[in-house]
């Protein structure tokens, strides 16, 4: 029984961390209407930006996460302007393929600079906290807190600031938003910045407890997509719910499957949802 409890604990932590890039992914989908695979490479970019901040400039984890957000966000805006925006008129499929190609290109820039070796952040190695037959790492808890803080900040931004509300308007109804004078292009840039920035935070959080390499983002993209789809593409609360569901499901799968099959869980989840309830848990609507 403690085994199941331990898996639940791990799953909730993993799910909360997964929610961060999932929100980014779903937000971009809500405004730009295509699944942006480049979230994968931006998770990696964020992870490495944080790594440089941490190991070369000595930033502590919290500050390094901020660096991850900024670098990934800026990269997201630039690559979108240069590569993906000109292709959007050609349709969602072309944009999706271009995003895959872009992810590969960006991943290899990272690989060129840092090679394929695993790298760890420069953080003190601390023993897990044990109690009631369960164990949880201090780093896991810290990651949890960072994830919750990031999501909280996002919710506040969307609910209470003018730009946030503008973003929601464009996602909900682009034509009406245009009539009301909201600049859709600026909103698109903004959502790319925020979305990819969140992906960057997600990538770093994944690596803080373990290690990072150029494939960090790619490994998690299927789970991110699954979280967004399960929760309902385009819905931010949906992404959070979906991420928790996927996180827990992946951990529970360890009861009967080898650890390597965790990605398969996300894959199966996507198929199930798309066949049975394509709108996902919270439906395909905007924020």
């Amino acid at each position, binding site marked *: 029984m403690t085994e199941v409890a331990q898996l639940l604990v791990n799953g909730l932590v993993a799910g909360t961390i997964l929610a961060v890039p999932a929100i980014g992914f779903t937000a971009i989908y809500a405004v730009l209407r*295509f*699944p942006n*695979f480049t979230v994968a490479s931006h998770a990696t970019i964020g992870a490495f930006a944080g790594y440089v901040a941490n190991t070369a400039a000595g930033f502590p984890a919290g500050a390094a996460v901020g660096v991850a957000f900024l670098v990934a966000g800026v990269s997201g805006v630039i690559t979108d302007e240069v*590569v993906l925006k*000109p*292709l959007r008129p*050609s*349709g*969602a*499929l*072309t*944009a*999706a*393929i*271009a995003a*895959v*190609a*872009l*992810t*590969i*290109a960006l*991943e*290899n*820039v990272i*690989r*060129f600079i840092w*090679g*394929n070796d695993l790298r760890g952040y420069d953080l003190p190695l601390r023993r897990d906290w044990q109690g009631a037959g369960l164990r949880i790492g201090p780093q896991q808890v810290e990651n949890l807190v960072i994830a919750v803080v990031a999501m909280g900040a996002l919710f506040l931004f969307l609910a209470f600031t003018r730009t946030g509300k503008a973003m929601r308007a464009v996602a909900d109804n682009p034509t009406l938003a245009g009539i009301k004078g909201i600049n859709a292009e600026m909103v698109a840039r903004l959502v790319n910045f925020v979305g990819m920035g969140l992906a960057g935070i997600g990538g770093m959080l994944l690596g803080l407890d373990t290690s990072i390499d150029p494939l960090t983002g790619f490994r998690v993209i*299927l789970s991110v*997509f699954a979280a967004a789809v399960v929760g309902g593409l385009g819905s931010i609360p949906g992404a959070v719910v979906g991420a928790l569901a996927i996180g827990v499901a992946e951990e529970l799968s360890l009861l009967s499957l*080898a650890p*390597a*099959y965790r*990605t*398969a869980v*996300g*894959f199966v989840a*996507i*198929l199930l949802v*798309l*066949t049975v309830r394509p709108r996902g848990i919270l439906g395909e609507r905007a924020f």
Partner: protein
Amino acid sequence: MATFAGLYALLALGLNLVWGMTGMINLGLVGFYAFGAYVSALLTKKAGWPMPAGLLAAMLLTAGAGVLMALVTARLRGDYLAIITLGFSEVVRIVASNEIWLTNGSDGISGIPGPWRGQVSPATFNLIFLVIVSAAVLVVFAALQRVRHSPYGRVLRAIRDDDQVAAVAGKPVIAFKVEAFAVSAAVLGLAGALYGHYTSYIAPEGFVPLISIYIVLALTAGGTGNNVGAVVGAFLVVFFLESTRFLTGGLPGLKPVQVAAVREFLIGASLIVVLRFRPYGLVPERIPRHATPGAG
């Protein structure tokens, strides 16, 4: 190198059938490539089957896998299909890595028999294999060209351009899609099986999504919807890959991993450039309809 171009040409022809002609993107084609390779390798090495039987089995079983995949994904929108099929190829790779009892896991399968390998000099073996692959390409090309010019091909194109209209016109769209997928998968599986017999060694990490992107690039650059374009594109891509090796060979002090990174970067960048500036490819489809695969 020409042999690899031939293998990639087979893959491109296979992709063209489902994507160029039927409008279903399959970014997971490397999964079928791997599937065919493993089937033939295991049957010829562990069960001692002769190579032609291995090839045939690879084609049939991969076609079966294709049917399964098509049934599950037939109704999906283009961009969802792209990511799902990508996920599928990753799942295939994970299964190959994990089920050590069957596939020998990440150690891979070595010593896959090849036609007369060990009995002739390596150079002669390479030549013999080149002939085999070229023959395969010609046969598949001819067959697919016939499909293209047939009424069957017209139905596929109709489905590609607007499958709702095709359904209204009374065509069993799902059945056609599944069939096209199955045949495409068979071609992909054949290419995989040939690959294994040629290199004598296969492993899960050789079947990465990047290869699917090579083939998408080949098709996009060569001309979607178009078998000649597929083959031309494949040769272009292989030539491109070889010349990047040439270029980076000239840059001193680069480690192998950096050379590989440059090559992969250029592939990603090329696909983006082609999508942007020449989405119809070099050999445009000679049918009076717009040739880009149905935007979602």
